[in-house]
């Protein structure tokens, strides 16, 4: 055991020059001491290497575990992101606003039943049976169409996708005083969508008052679609 302390001091450079000289002389002369020192050196190397291996292995396991966790997470996140981008790209490309013009939370049956007399006349009947062309023809020859007839003609143009004509009629009407004060601004916006004037359409929809039941149509999905269309046009 004394020798081990001596070996520790020699390898740890704790001996002075004279002691080092003595030790090295003993090693060269004493075969048993030399063998013991060699065994000591190997044992020390074994301890060092065994512990170094354990430490490296521990770091290795942590590193590869973290890497395995990080890689799939990044891959999944990337897949989701690319999926979303791809879906958005396809959606933006295929979204032409047709669905926006179809989806109406409030059916147009209601305004048909309104008007000065609240009574079904010829124009009401034509609109109800979707005879839009005939209604438009009738409007063209009518010298003094009433408000309801005018509005129904605008809607007939809208239904036949003649958004420009529909818009012209709606813009001429006095929305504030009209029995169709809710419908006029909403369908003005819809016509603008049909004409791909999305920025103007958004402005029109934004100006719908909360009391306007059509404002409900302008929900987040509708807005999202409009903004996507805005990017496209």
């Amino acid at each position, binding site marked *: *055991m004394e020798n*081990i*302390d001596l070996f520790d001091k020699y390898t740890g450079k704790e001996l002075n020059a004279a002691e080092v000289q003595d030790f090295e002389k003993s090693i060269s002369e004493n075969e048993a001491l030399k063998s*013991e020192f*060699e*065994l*000591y*050196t*190997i*044992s*020390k*190397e*074994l*301890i*060092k*290497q*065994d*512990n*170094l*291996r354990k*430490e*490296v*292995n521990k*770091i*290795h396991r942590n*590193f*590869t575990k973290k890497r395995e966790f990080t890689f799939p997470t990044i891959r999944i996140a990337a897949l989701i992101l690319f999926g979303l981008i791809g879906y958005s790209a396809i959606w933006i490309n295929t979204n032409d606003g047709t669905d926006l013009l179809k989806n109406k939370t409030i059916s147009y049956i209601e305004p048909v039943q309104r008007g000065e007399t609240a009574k079904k006349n010829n124009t009401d009947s034509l609109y109800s049976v979707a005879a839009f062309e005939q209604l438009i023809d009738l409007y063209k020859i009518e010298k003094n169409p009433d408000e309801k007839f005018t509005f129904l003609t605008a809607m007939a143009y809208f239904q036949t996708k003649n958004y420009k004509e529909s818009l012209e009629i709606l813009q001429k009407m006095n929305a504030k005083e009209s029995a169709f004060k809710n419908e006029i601004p909403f369908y003005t916006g819809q016509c603008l969508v049909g004409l791909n004037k999305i920025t103007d359409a958004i402005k029109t929809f934004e100006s719908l008052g909360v009391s306007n039941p059509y404002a409900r149509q302008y929900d987040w999905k509708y807005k999202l679609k409009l903004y996507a269309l805005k990017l496209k046009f």
Partner: protein
Amino acid sequence: LKDLEIVENIEKNTNLNACIQSLYKDHYGLLENFVIKNGGRKEDGEDVVQETMVTFIQIIQEGKYRKEANLKSFLYAITKNIWFTKLKKLKAELQRGSIWIEKSAEYDDDINESIKKKESLGLIMSVLDNLGEVCSNILKRFYYEELSLIEILPFTNFENEQVLRNKKSKCMKTLMENLEKNTQLKSALNQALKLF
């Protein structure tokens, strides 16, 4: 950590854990890829990188690393040598033939010497298994972590430094005796003795 910082820390045997982590972070992919590109599987890559780290630290601590050598190239050279040595053995076993091993880098000799030392110790490593937890702990802290006996004392139940010193020497003596008396390890031990 910067390359020079890593080398200096390993030389002084300080912050070893942080150094190895930094080496893993910066070089693992490159080293593992080398093995995979040269006929190894992912598992081979993992093993070789671990061996590379052990060899690298050993070379630095033996004072054989020349600081002008680029750390990345040096690690790459170690990986190359370890993998080709393994591959050569594997091929020899499979085909009883040999493969040509590229020998180009100037530090290949040092690397190969360290690989041989590491391998020779690997063959007698089992002798540590019977040492017991108390001895393993003391010897680890004293010879691997290079702590003084006073620093080790709080980690143990020993009364004072002298008792601990005696225990440490006894543990070392036991290890040396086990090594000497194990006949199965005799040839491996003799091989290791020639190298150290």
